[in-house]
C-alpha cells in the first residue's frame, strides 16, 4: 500500500517492485487461467523471494467461494435452528397429545361446572380438584351406587390394575362389569379383571390409588383448569404461554380450558432418540443440499465468467496482431456490453490496420514505378543495349525528380490534416490568382486556355474572406491546377467560376473548376478524392501524379469546414466544386 503523498519519482522505474508486479502475460506466453500460478512462477523465475504459493484467486473463484460461504452459513443456521425448534416444539407437541387424552377429565370438570353454575366451587379448591382427578373413582367413592354407564378409566387406573394382587375373597361373579373399552371380546374369566371393579365398589385400599400427583413427572403437576378469560381456577401454577389448552365447552360457548404445561426438557430415552434421528435427517439433507448448491454455484460462476476468459484470450490475440478476433456476445448484461465494445474496438482496429496496409501497398507501388523505369534504364546501359548520352541522363533525372515528388506527397498525406491547421483571415481568391499566375506558363505550353474572368471580376469588387490556412489552401489550388494540367488534352480549356453567397443564402464561397476532355467515367467520380486513386483506366499517366493530390485537397477543404465534389463538366472534362464557409465578420 502506498502512503498518501508518497514520492514515486524516488523509485527507479525498473526496480524489483515494478518488475514484480508486471502481469505475467507480458513476460511469458502462457495459456490464460492455467491451473498453475503464473504469478508465483514468474516470481520464482525472476529470482524474487516472493512467498506466493497461494493459487490464483480469479474472479470466478472468488464468487464461488463467496457463494459457498453464504450457503454454509445458511445451512448451519437452518440446521441449528431446525434442531432447536424440534427440541422445543417436541415438548409442546407431546403436551398437546397428552391433553387430548384428558377429555375424560374435561368432561368431569364440565360436569362440576354445570352442577355449580360457575367456577366458584372449584376455584383454589385443591381438594375438589384432586377428587376430580380421581375421576370416576372419586364419584364411586362418594356415590352409593355405581352408575351403569361405562366410562373410560383413567390411564393410571389401567396401569395400576395390571399389578397382580391376590384376590381377598376369590369368588368369581360372572361377566366382567367394568371392562375398559366397553365392548370386549368374550374372555375366560380372570380373577383380576373380575374382582377389581367389585373391590372398587367398596373403599379402595391406599395402595390401589396412591396420589398420582406424587409421581415423578406426573401429568397432574402440570395440569390446571382455566376460566374463559384464561385465568387459573385451580391446579398447578404453570406457565400459561407454553401450555397446551383444551377448551371446555358448554352450550357451544367456551367456559374454560384444561391446560397442560409441557415437560421441562426431554427426559425420556425415546424423546432423545427421536431428536437425534430427526437431527441426523436434517443435517444429512442440509449436506446434500449444500453439495448440490456448491456444484451448481461452481457451474454458475464458471458460466458467468466464461465471457471474461474469452475476452482475455481475445484481447491477447488482438495484442498479438490477430485483429480479426471477435468474441461471441450473449445476453444483454454488462459483460455482453463489454464484449460488444471489445468487438467494436477490434473492428475499428482492423479497419484502420487494413487501410494502413492498403495505403502502404499503394505507396510502395507508387514508388516502384519510377524505380522500375530507372532500373530498366541503368541495366540497359550496363548491358550495352543503350549508350549513355544527354537524353539518358535527362530521363534518369526526371525519374529521380518524380520519385522525390512522390515521397513528398506521401509525407504530406500522412500528416493529420487538422493537426497543423493554423487559422487566420485568408483571402482565398488572392491565393487562387497566385496559383494561376504560378502555373500560367505551363498552361500556355500545353495550349490550354484558362478562363479566369470570374476570379478577376470578383476580386476587383469585394474580396470574400474566410478563416483558414493560406499555405494549405494555396496547395489545394495548386493541386487542382496540376490535375487539370495532367489530365486535359492539349488545346483544351479551363474555366473558373466564383459564386459568393451572402449571409441570407448560406454565407459561403463556391469555386468551380471546369476543364475540357477527357472526362472521368461516372463510376470513378466518387473515388476521385480517395488516397492514391488515379484514373488508371481512363486517363493517361504520362504526366505523372501520385494520386495523392486530390485526397490532400479533400482533407484540407474538409478541415476548413467546406466540401469538395467532382462531377462531369459541361466543357467535356471534370468539374470540381469547392464550397468554403465565409468568415462570419465579412
Amino acid at each position, binding site marked *: 500500500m502506498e502512503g498518501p503523498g508518497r514520492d514515486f519519482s524516488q523509485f527507479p522505474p525498473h526496480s524489483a517492485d515494478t518488475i514484480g508486479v508486471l502481469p505475467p502475460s507480458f513476460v511469458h506466453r502462457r495459456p490464460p487461467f492455467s491451473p498453475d500460478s503464473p504469478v508465483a512462477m514468474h516470481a520464482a523465475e525472476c529470482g524474487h523471494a516472493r512467498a506466493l504459493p497461494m493459487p490464483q484467486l480469479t474472479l470466478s473463484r472468488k464468487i464461488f467461494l463467496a457463494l459457498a460461504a453464504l450457503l454454509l452459513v445458511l445451512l448451519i443456521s437452518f440446521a441449528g435452528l431446525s434442531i432447536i425448534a424440534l427440541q422445543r416444539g417436541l415438548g409442546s407437541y407431546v403436551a398437546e397429545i397428552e391433553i387430548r387424552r384428558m377429555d375424560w377429565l374435561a368432561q368431569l370438570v364440565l360436569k362440576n361446572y354445570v352442577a355449580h353454575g360457575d367456577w366458584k366451587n372449584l376455584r383454589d379448591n385443591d381438594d375438589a380438584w384432586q377428587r376430580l382427578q380421581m375421576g370416576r373413582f372419586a364419584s364411586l367413592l362418594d356415590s352409593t351406587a355405581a352408575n351403569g354407564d361405562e366410562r373410560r378409566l383413567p390411564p393410571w387406573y389401567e396401569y395400576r390394575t395390571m399389578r397382580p394382587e391376590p384376590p381377598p375373597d376369590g369368588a368369581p361373579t360372572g361377566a366382567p362389569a367394568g371392562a375398559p373399552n366397553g365392548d370386549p371380546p368374550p374372555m375366560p374369566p380372570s380373577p383380576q379383571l373380575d374382582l377389581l371393579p367389585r373391590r372398587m365398589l367398596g373403599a379402595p385400599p391406599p395402595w390401589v390409588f396412591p396420589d398420582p400427583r406424587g409421581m415423578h413427572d406426573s401429568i397432574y403437576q402440570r395440569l390446571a383448569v382455566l376460566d374463559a378469560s384464561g385465568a387459573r381456577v385451580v391446579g398447578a401454577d404453570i406457565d400459561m404461554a407454553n401450555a397446551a389448552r383444551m377448551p371446555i365447552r358448554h352450550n357451544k360457548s367456551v367456559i374454560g380450558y384444561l391446560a397442560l404445561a409441557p415437560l421441562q426438557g426431554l427426559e425420556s430415552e425415546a424423546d432423545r432418540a427421536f431428536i437425534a434421528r430427526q437431527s441426523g435427517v436434517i443435517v444429512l439433507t442440509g449436506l446434500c443440499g449444500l453439495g448440490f448448491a456448491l456444484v451448481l454455484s461452481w457451474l454458475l460462476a464458471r458460466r458467468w465468467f466464461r465471457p471474461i476468459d474469452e475476452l482475455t484470450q481475445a484481447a491477447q490475440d488482438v495484442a498479438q496482431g490477430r485483429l480479426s478476433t471477435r468474441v461471441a456476445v450473449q445476453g444483454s448484461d454488462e459483460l455482453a456490453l463489454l464484449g460488444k465494445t471489445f468487438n467494436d474496438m477490434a473492428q475499428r482496429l482492423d479497419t484502420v490496420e487494413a487501410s494502413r496496409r492498403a495505403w502502404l501497398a499503394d505507396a510502395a*507501388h507508387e514508388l516502384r514505378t519510377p524505380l*522500375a523505369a530507372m532500373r530498366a534504364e541503368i541495366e540497359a546501359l550496363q548491358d550495352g543495349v543503350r549508350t549513355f548520352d544527354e537524353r539518358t541522363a535527362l530521363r534518369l533525372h526526371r525519374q529521380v525528380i518524380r520519385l522525390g515528388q512522390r515521397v513528398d506527397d506521401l509525407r504530406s498525406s500522412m500528416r493529420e490534416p487538422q493537426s497543423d491547421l493554423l487559422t487566420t483571415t485568408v483571402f482565398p481568391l488572392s491565393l487562387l490568382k497566385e496559383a494561376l499566375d504560378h502555373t500560367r506558363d505551363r498552361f500556355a505550353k500545353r495550349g490550354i486556355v484558362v478562363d479566369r474572368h470570374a476570379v478577376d471580376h470578383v476580386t476587383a469588387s469585394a474580396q470574400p474572406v474566410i478563416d483558414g490556412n493560406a499555405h494549405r489552401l494555396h496547395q489545394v489550388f495548386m493541386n487542382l491546377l496540376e490535375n487539370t494540367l495532367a489530365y486535359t488534352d492539349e488545346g483544351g480549356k479551363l474555366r473558373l467560376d466564383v459564386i459568393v453567397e451572402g449571409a441570407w443564402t448560406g454565407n459561403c464561397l463556391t469555386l468551380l473548376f471546369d476543364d475540357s476532355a477527357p472526362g472521368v467515367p461516372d463510376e470513378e467520380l466518387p473515388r476521385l478524392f480517395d488516397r492514391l486513386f488515379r484514373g488508371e483506366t481512363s486517363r493517361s499517366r504520362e504526366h505523372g501524379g501520385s494520386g495523392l493530390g486530390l485526397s490532400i485537397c479533400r482533407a484540407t477543404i474538409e478541415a476548413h469546414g467546406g466540401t469538395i465534389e467532382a462531377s462531369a463538366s459541361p466543357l467535356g472534362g471534370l468539374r470540381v466544386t469547392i464550397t468554403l464557409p465565409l468568415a462570419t465578420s465579412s
Partner: protein
Amino acid sequence: MTRIVIVEDEIDIASVVQDYLRHAGYETTHFTDGQSALDSIVATPPDLTLLDIMLPRLDGIEVLRRAREHTAHPIIMLTARIEEVDRLLGLELGADDYVCKPFSPRELVARVRAVLRRTAPGNAPGQGSSQSRAAPCSTAACCH
C-alpha cells in the same frame, strides 16, 4: 522476323524494353493504351505480346480476354501488384507467363525467348501453352 507487341503506358520502361528486344533481334511495336493494342493484335496477331495490366482505356485483363477469342499466340502479362497476379491466376484467362514489376529487362528477354521456344512452330501449339501456364511459380519470386 519475330514480331513482338509491347503494351505499356510507362513510356520510359517501354522504350528500354523495346531497345532490349531489338537488341536481341526481335521486331517490336509499342502501344500505350489497351484499346489500340487490342485492335492491332486482333487484326494481325504478332508472334508474342507483352501486356501490362494497368492500362488506360481498356485494362490488360480485358485485352487478354478479348484477344483470346481471336488468337492463341503467346501473351506475357506485366503486373505491378501481387493482387493482380492472384486475379490473373484466378481468372485462368490463358496468359502464357507473367512478370512482376519492377522487372529486370534482361530477365524479361530471357522469358520471351523461353516462351517463344516452347511455342515455336515445331511444337504442338496447345502443348507449349499448357506447360508454360503451369510454370509461373518461378516468377513469383520477383514479386515483392
